[in-house]
């Protein structure tokens, strides 16, 4: 653990100093956006490093830790660190500073005590991370879920946070990084719209306290990161960043989740409306082009991989019958818009990262943000342009998303402009402040626990030692063997089987008959089989094994060879 911690610090130190070094070459005249730019560069460096290490099978703590230590040494010798700006509390105000500190402490506690527990995460986001970490590189085995081949840009950052300790106790830090990016980008956008530095920070704080976004940050889901990268794209365009620099968050967003493409029309509209404004001139033009190219390659990596392996960049869309809408539908736009206006905005349902049946935009957006935005657009052309761009992106999502219970998690970028407008409303009408404060406090308390991690489950997680902390007992996967088989039709909690320290080998079985299943288990040297919800023909295979006495049920989801 000590060596892992050293490698973790070294690698993160290298990525921070490296991102800072690059930022010095391309920093913008508008200082408020430089912090967001720094964070995106760091995320790009980490993503590109993990992809390169994964492809070359050097995805180990030792390799990346030593590389990080050498780079840190180089940066220290070059004295790069002396240019790092010192944060000044006076510029953000002590109240905002104190609130940021409390949020920071809370997030760190959540990172420490939470364990991955949401269905999608356990079924297809993290099993591939576990395979990569165990194997020390990218693998063909991604699990049995039909979403497993989707782009995994966010999983690269999660891999970074588990690799060095060979443990997932810090895995939620990946989401927290994107939350900080969301704060920085919103603040930059607010400053660009004319708010003071202090007000801009408050806009950022209010945005990250959006219930949907805050709960996504520690859920290991990737919709929060998509929102953060979308707001960053808007901010960079609004702050007149050069085009290669703008490409970076756009490409990273597409690499995190294809739903990012739904937002692109709005981002392009803002670019179109801003085309007359002079773009930022960068002394090191080559650096910005190199960053844009690196961003494109990193974001496109998953699509190129799928094209090479399956002949379809968005595999399995178009080939399997997935519950995903892949073309624009006017009926979806009208239905989703009606649902948003009449039902979702009220948030009449439990807060959770999936936003089941709710918008998750929170009370500040609902009570102050919409009103503030309507008032502001009437008097400021810059705000009108930005609002039009945000609305077009929102329309893009509503047009492309199937009207299920969860489509609002693709719209988490929108509260950014509502948060800025809420702060502006307070500036315009100071007596509104108590309402904003009450709503902020309520959102802080209300987002402490998602509905799918109720208090009793959190107590169970907190009662475990950090080394063994896992949600596996919630799903009936209490196994001791060092290797287990996993048999499932599609969705299931496969990630739990690896253990928080990735010490257990998981063999994904795709056998077509009872005999083949037993043979596959024997060949893999496993005597324990874990099962998730099964389709009829797969259930019959298990029933055949049980009837012939070859397998015995140890619990609902665990079977053992007799």
């Amino acid at each position, binding site marked *: 653990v000590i060596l892992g911690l050293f490698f973790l610090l070294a690698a993160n130190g290298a990525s921070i100093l490296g991102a800072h070094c690059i930022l010095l070459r391309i920093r913008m005249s508008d200082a408020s956006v430089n912090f967001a730019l720094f964070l995106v560069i760091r995320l790009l460096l980490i993503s590109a490093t993990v992809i390169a290490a994964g492809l070359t099978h050097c995805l180990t703590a030792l390799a990346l830790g030593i590389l990080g230590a050498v780079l840190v040494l180089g940066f220290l010798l070059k004295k790069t660190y002396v240019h790092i700006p010192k944060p000044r509390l006076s510029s953000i105000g002590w109240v905002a500073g104190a609130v940021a500190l409390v949020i920071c402490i809370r997030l760190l506690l959540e990172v420490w005590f939470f364990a991955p527990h949401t269905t999608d995460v356990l079924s297809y986001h993290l099993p591939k991370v576990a395979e990569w970490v165990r194997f020390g590189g990218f693998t063909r085995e991604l699990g049995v879920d039909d979403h497993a081949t989707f782009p995994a840009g966010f999983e690269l950052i999660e891999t970074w946070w588990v690799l060095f300790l060979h443990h997932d106790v810090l895995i939620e830090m990946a989401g927290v990084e994107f939350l900080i990016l969301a704060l920085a980008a919103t603040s930059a956008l607010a400053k660009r719209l004319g708010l003071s530095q202090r007000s801009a920070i408050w806009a950022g704080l209010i945005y990250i306290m959006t219930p949907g976004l805050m709960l996504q940050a520690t859920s290991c889901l990737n919709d929060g990161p998509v929102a953060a990268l979308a707001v960053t794209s808007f901010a960079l365009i609004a702050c007149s960043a050069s085009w290669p620099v703008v490409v970076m968050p756009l490409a990273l967003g597409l690499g995190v989740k294809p739903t990012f493409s739904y937002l692109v029309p709005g981002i392009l509209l803002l670019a179109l409306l801003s085309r007359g404004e002079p773009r930022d001139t960068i002394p090191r033009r080559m650096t910005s082009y190199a960053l844009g190219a690196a961003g494109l390659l990193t974001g496109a990596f998953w699509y190129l991989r799928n094209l090479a392996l399956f002949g379809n960049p968005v595999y399995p869309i178009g080939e399997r019958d997935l519950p995903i809408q892949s073309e624009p539908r006017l009926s979806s736009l009208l239905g989703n818009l009606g649902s948003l206006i009449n039902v979702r905005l009220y*948030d*009449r349902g439990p807060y959770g990262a999936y936003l089941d049946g709710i918008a998750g935009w929170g009370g500040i957006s*609902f009570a102050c943000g919409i009103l503030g935005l309507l008032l502001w657009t009437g008097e400021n052309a810059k705000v009108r342009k930005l609002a039009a761009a945000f609305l077009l992106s929102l329309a893009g999502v509503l047009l492309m998303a199937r009207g299920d219970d969860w489509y609002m998690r693709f719209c988490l970028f929108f509260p950014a402009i509502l948060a800025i407008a809420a702060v502006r409303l307070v500036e315009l009408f100071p007596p509104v402040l108590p309402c904003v404060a009450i709503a902020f406090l309520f959102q802080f308390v209300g987002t402490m626990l998602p509905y799918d991690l109720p208090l009793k489950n959190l107590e169970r997680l907190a009662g475990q030692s950090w080394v063994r902390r896992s949600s596996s007992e919630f799903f009936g996967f209490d196994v001791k063997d060092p290797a287990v088989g996993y048999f499932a039709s599609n969705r299931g909690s496969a990630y739990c089987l690896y253990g928080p320290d990735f010490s257990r080998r998981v063999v994904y079985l795709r056998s077509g008959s009872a005999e083949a299943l037993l043979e596959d288990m024997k060949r893999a040297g496993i005597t324990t089989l874990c099962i998730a919800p099964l389709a009829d023909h797969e259930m019959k295979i298990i029933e055949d094994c049980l009837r012939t006495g070859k397998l015995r049920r140890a619990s609902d989801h665990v079977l053992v060879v007799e």
Partner: protein
Amino acid sequence: MSPPGTVGDLLRKLGPSVILLGWRATVLPATQLPGDWVTILAAYFLLRAFALPRQTWTFLTVATVTLLLGIYLFGQIPYTLAILGRSP
């Protein structure tokens, strides 16, 4: 654009709010209108068409925000209490 103070100007200012109010009155039962955020904001902007003193504006804005926040919290608090292990 019509000059300020003319009927055309008043119609331009009132038009969107009147249309929104008419739409909500058509699609929602009368009992739901007071709790409907679109109706509340449309009513706010309807009043905005009239030149009221600054103090009145501040009062109306605070009242609108308070009403909207009350509607939001009334709907959300029971769920939050349930998650935190407390019955509403």
